[in-house]
């Protein structure tokens, strides 16, 4: 491996890490836009803390639990010690990954993924979870649950050692479905927001700013170039460019699918559905972005993901699973769909692969759901996870943060006079 190619490869992984970072802004904007004004500071606070907590816990334990080394190959769990410090010299450099990236590039790219997984949960439990409980959950999830799941496949664990190995290119299962199942567990343990499911039916609780939500989705798409493109784990021109194309086409088709289905179901053009449709397309292609050598397959996958979104949103509402941002539909449902699609389309398509995909996503889903459920339940019976009805009514911004997201927006002539009182 030549030094220069190593430099290029490594540079790409780092840029990809920065792009995955910006997904955190995407999630923050999307979730802020989809919650009510009174809970906006709270959701932004959670998103600001998750990235902080996520990176540090992943540094301390997560990374070495997810990539514990060859001795744990084929296993269910491993750990190689606290902290992520690069081996000296070439071992942490050109020799670390055959000239594809350095130790620290690996760490930072993986750490950004880890934090993403926890962020997925925050949207589904928004507007009613206690701040402290949520931060505790996130820390545990990023430190232990996500790394264990990741280890099964990317860390060389048992899913990677099946006869026909489970395939998950960039994490439809490992990141998205895992996060989505945890989100589902959280939404179930918490229960719905007050006033969402009433005797007279399902009530709409519109997000306070669709412009923010739209910004979030475009930023997520932008970040996904790093999420999927970086998962090539080198700057290989053929693979990275294919992944860019399949990722974009799937997202594009997701928009169109959701456009059509939401029109069929609701007879209207629901922006929030098209936005979710784009995300569904992105999540859907993530498992096999590098396998769709005919990009038309990516269009099919994304289009179906887009069709699924409105149906799934309605379904979860019928089940009284209250998910303000659609995280379960986007990440769980489309994550499962994308994982299975690897068995249906692209260069690995086939019955055996399909079965392995099913095993993989079922195992991960069950584990993520069960552990998240257990943690949320444990927090519920100990510190409590749900804010009081009164706090929920007043909003978490005032009750947990003593702040408001917007001040003086209503004042004419720019006079925020009330605050000089």
């Amino acid at each position, binding site marked *: 491996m030549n030094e220069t190619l190593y430099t290029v490869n490594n540079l790409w992984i780092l840029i990809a890490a920065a792009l995955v970072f910006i997904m955190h802004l995407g999630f923050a904007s999307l979730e802020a836009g989809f919650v009510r004004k009174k809970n906006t500071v709270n959701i932004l606070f959670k998103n600001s803390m998750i990235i902080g907590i996520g990176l540090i816990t992943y540094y301390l334990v997560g990374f070495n639990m997810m990539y514990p080394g060859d001795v744990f190959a084929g296993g269910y769990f491993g750990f190689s010690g606290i902290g992520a410090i690069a081996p000296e010299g070439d071992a942490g450099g050109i020799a670390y990954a055959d000239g594809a990236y350095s130790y620290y590039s690996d760490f930072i790219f993986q750490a950004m993924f880890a934090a993403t997984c926890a962020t997925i949960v925050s949207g589904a439990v928004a507007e009613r979870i206690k701040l402290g409980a949520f931060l505790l959950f996130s820390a545990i999830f990023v430190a232990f649950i996500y790394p264990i799941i990741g280890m099964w496949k990317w860390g060389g664990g048992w899913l990677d050692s099946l006869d026909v190995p489970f395939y998950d290119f960039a994490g439809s299962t490992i990141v998205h479905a895992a996060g989505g199942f945890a989100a589902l567990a959280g939404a179930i343990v918490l229960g719905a927001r007050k006033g969402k499911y009433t005797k007279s*039916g*399902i*009530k*709409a*609780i*519109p*997000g306070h700013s669709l412009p923010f939500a739209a910004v979030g989705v475009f930023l997520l798409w932008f970040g996904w170039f790093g999420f999927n493109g970086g998962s090539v784990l080198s700057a290989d021109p053929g693979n990275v460019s294919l992944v860019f194309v399949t990722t974009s086409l799937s997202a594009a088709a997701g928009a169109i699918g959701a456009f059509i289905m*939401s029109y069929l*179901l*609701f007879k*209207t053009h*629901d922006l*929030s*559905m098209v936005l979710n449709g784009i995300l569904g397309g992105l999540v859907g292609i993530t498992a096999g972005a590098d396998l769709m050598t005919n990009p038309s397959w990516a269009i099919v996958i994304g289009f179906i993901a887009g069709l699924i979104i*409105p149906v799934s*949103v*309605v379904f979860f*509402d019928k089940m009284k699973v209250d998910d303000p941002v*659609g995280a379960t539909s986007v990440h769980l449902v489309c994550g499962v769909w994308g994982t299975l699609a690897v068995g249906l389309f692209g260069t690995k398509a086939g019955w055996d692969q399909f079965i392995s995909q099913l095993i993989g996503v079922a195992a991960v889903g069950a584990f993520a759901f069960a552990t998240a459920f257990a943690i949320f339940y444990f927090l519920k019976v100990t510190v409590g996870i749900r804010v009081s009805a009164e706090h929920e009514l007043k909003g978490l911004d005032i009750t947990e943060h003593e702040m408001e997201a917007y001040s003086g927006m209503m004042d004419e002539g720019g006079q925020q006079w009330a605050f000089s009182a």
Partner: protein
Amino acid sequence: MKKIEAIIRSRKFDEVKESLAEKGIHFFTFYEVKGFGHQKGKELSYRGAIYDAGYIARIKLEIILSDEFVETAYETIAKAAHTGENGDGLILVTPVLSIKNIRSGLEGSKSINI
């Protein structure tokens, strides 16, 4: 002195304002209100669930007038705000016991800005 209160359509606001001005009535106070009446608010839809604020948005005017102007203002507003469709709103006349202009300190009908 009387106070006229009128609840009108937002889109009739300019017309009402100009008609009043033509009659020499330039001064008034207004604010946005919401109303339940014959006309219903439009149903909205969000993520598959339909919701309906129920109310419609209206502008409320308040005009303090000397007694001799009341009739004119009353009729002028009634005409300018009329569309004939549900939702046109209403006009009230209510009593005022006393009034003071803060700047000039004048009281009673001398104090009224027209």
